[in-house]
């Protein structure tokens, strides 16, 4: 019986020319948007790789240079586009793209795309995610808001009920038929993405999760729309409530909640953050200040260790040791302050995720950018890995400075580019989604709760008298 209803609904859908045209428009839009998304990702990726190569070539061809001078010369890392940037670019256009890694300081990632022009949009680029998050659900609402109320207004509902169909089965069947329509658009879009994307297992898992997340969200939207359609006297009331809900979910609540989250768990101001870092940093060794007390302490330690009286007698270059000790202290300071910021970010994220219990759209958005590798978690992962690389780079340079054969004070001692070429390049590997899935539990759970709630409404909360 349910299959008959679903088939009948599909027959009606296919015969409605407006729906056929709109579906064609959707398909064409999806094709062009996926194509544009890939083109943009390709262009950006090429620019990023070119910049990376250019900077690396400069490093590889360095004139003979003192390792510490090379630490000041530093390297630049460029944030690569996320694994599924062409589908959902999440925070990518807001966050910076260029990070200088050098000795003594941990810089901020800068030069975001958003800072390079006047405002162009407030809901981001037109990506497949825009269509799948805003357009498709809206269209599903348009398809379902009258599904039951039309039958009710025309009296068909009585006729159907008299044929022995239960109201629950009817509503569920109608919901499923419209959901299948959304699912086809979704699969079409994901399939295109899949064909254009990589073949790695991680990519496949991510695509799979995206499919499930959107599928669940569409199910919620369709079930609620059909439920509301069944619960209201007429189409006008049903569509009014559904549009109001759509606006609340997609436009209003995410912003209100997002702003509130920052107020509940405030981040320090940049000025305070920097001055506190500076203060903590000043408690360490000042690598460039020979009169520094802590430096003298370290000196005594090394003189004792090598059993010599003066720095000039040391078989190593003490300057390199001081620089590394300074770095290590700086790293602790970084871990403390940035760690604290990351903790706040994490708290903010958790609180924001909880809004999914009120607004499944938030959960979908979180999951979409999470699985596309363009959310804050992935961005912070990039920053952490870049910082780890900075530590490796500076330690390599400091070790060379200390143990490469020079003596303390020989600032003119240089190493040639054979050494610089031996320093590994920073290659960011996107984290495996299966290792990070716990970050998205709340969002997944929220969607599941909403699915159960929608099912509950249809199963237990349909008023019998709507038939009359």
């Amino acid at each position: 019986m349910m299959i008959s209803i679903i088939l009948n609904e599909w027959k009606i859908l296919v015969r409605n020319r407006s729906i056929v045209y709109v579906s064609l428009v959707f398909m064409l839009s999806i094709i062009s948007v996926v194509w544009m998304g890939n083109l943009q990702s390709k262009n950006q990726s090429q620019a990023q790789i070119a910049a990376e190569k250019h900077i690396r070539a400069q490093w590889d061809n360095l004139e003979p240079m003192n390792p510490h001078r090379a630490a000041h010369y530093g390297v630049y890392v460029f944030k690569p586009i996320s694994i599924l940037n062409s589908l959902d670019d999440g925070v990518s256009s807001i966050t910076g793209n260029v990070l200088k890694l050098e000795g003594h300081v941990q810089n901020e990632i800068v030069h975001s795309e958003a800072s390079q022009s006047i405002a162009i949009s407030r809901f981001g680029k037109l990506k497949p995610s825009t269509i799948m998050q805003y357009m498709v659900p809206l269209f599903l609402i348009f398809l379902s808001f009258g599904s039951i109320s039309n039958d009710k207004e025309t009296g068909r509902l009585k006729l159907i009920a008299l044929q022995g169909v239960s109201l629950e089965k009817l509503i569920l069947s109608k919901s499923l038929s419209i959901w299948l329509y959304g699912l086809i658009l979704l699969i079409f879009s994901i399939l295109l993405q899949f064909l254009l994307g990589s073949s790695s297992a991680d990519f496949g898992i991510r695509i799979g999760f995206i499919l499930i997340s959107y599928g669940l969200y569409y199910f919620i939207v369709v079930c609620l729309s059909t439920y509301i359609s069944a619960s209201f006297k007429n189409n006008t009331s049903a569509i009014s409530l559904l549009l109001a809900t759509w606006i609340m979910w997609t436009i209003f609540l995410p912003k209100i909640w997002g702003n509130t989250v920052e107020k509940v768990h405030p981040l320090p101001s940049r000025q305070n953050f920097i001055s506190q870092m500076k203060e903590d940093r000043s408690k360490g060794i000042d690598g460039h200040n020979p009169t520094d007390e802590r430096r003298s302490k370290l000196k005594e330690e090394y003189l004792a260790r090598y059993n010599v009286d003066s720095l000039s007698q040391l078989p190593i270059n003490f300057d390199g040791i001081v620089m590394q000790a300074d770095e290590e202290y700086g790293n602790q300071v970084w871990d403390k302050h940035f760690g604290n910021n990351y903790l706040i970010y994490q708290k903010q994220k958790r609180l924001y995720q909880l809004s999914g219990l009120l607004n499944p759209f938030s959960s979908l958005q979180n999951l979409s950018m999470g699985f596309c590798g363009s959310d804050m978690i992935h961005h912070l992962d990039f920053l952490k890995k870049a910082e780890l690389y900075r530590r490796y780079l500076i330690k390599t340079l400091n070790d060379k400075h200390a143990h490469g054969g020079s003596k303390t004070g020989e600032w003119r001692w240089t190493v040639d580019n054979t050494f610089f070429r031996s320093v590994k390049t920073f290659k960011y590997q996107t984290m495996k989604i299966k290792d990070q899935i716990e970050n998205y539990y709340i969002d997944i759970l929220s969607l599941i709760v909403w699915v159960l709630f929608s099912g509950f409404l249809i199963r237990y909360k349909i008023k019998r008298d709507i038939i009359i």
Partner: protein
Amino acid sequence: MISLKNITKTFKGFKAVKDLSIDIPRGEIYGLLGSNGAGKSTTINILLGFLKPDKGEAFIDDINVTKSTDIARKKIGYISENVNLYPYLTGIENLNYFCKLAGENYTAEKLSNILNDCGLDSQAINKKVGTYSKGMRQKVGIAIAFAKKAKVLLLDEPASGLDPLASTELSTTLKTLSDKGTTVLMASHDIFRVRETCDRIGILRNGSLIDQMDTANVTTNELEKIYIEYMRN
């Protein structure tokens, strides 16, 4: 075949039907006459099992509608004032769909025959219902009941808005069905059509049955006078 025993139904303090009792034997066409708000639709909805009476019991073929709604419904066909079918489907597709919902599987030939028997010509059955007149849609509605082998046909203002020809065709079809043993209850305020179609008439006022008569014993003019007299009082 149709039996209403002391039915009372109240909506928010308003008594829509008061202590109503009617018995309609097999094959009879019974007309329920009454003005708007007299309780005709409420009575039909009780018989359809969509409303539960506050008091009394309703039976279809000796089956208590309130207690065994699903079983009773299998025996009922229903035609509303406006039979609104799916406009994008043809007549035969609509019939097929409703048959499937009822668990019946018919061949295309059988479905065509049913539609033809109900007065829809062969050319029309493959056209989309969106292009049908109201009378044609009602014929499909009757076909749905017929295909279901309904023992009882309930009609709520079926002649409203029909042209005289379609209206007469409807009467003929109902009489044919009644001859085959179908029991018909027709609620209407069209005195002429009720007089022409039904075997017996009941007049309903403020939810109470105030008179019953055989149509054979009354002319249309007399019936109109009686009806207006009741309504004025």
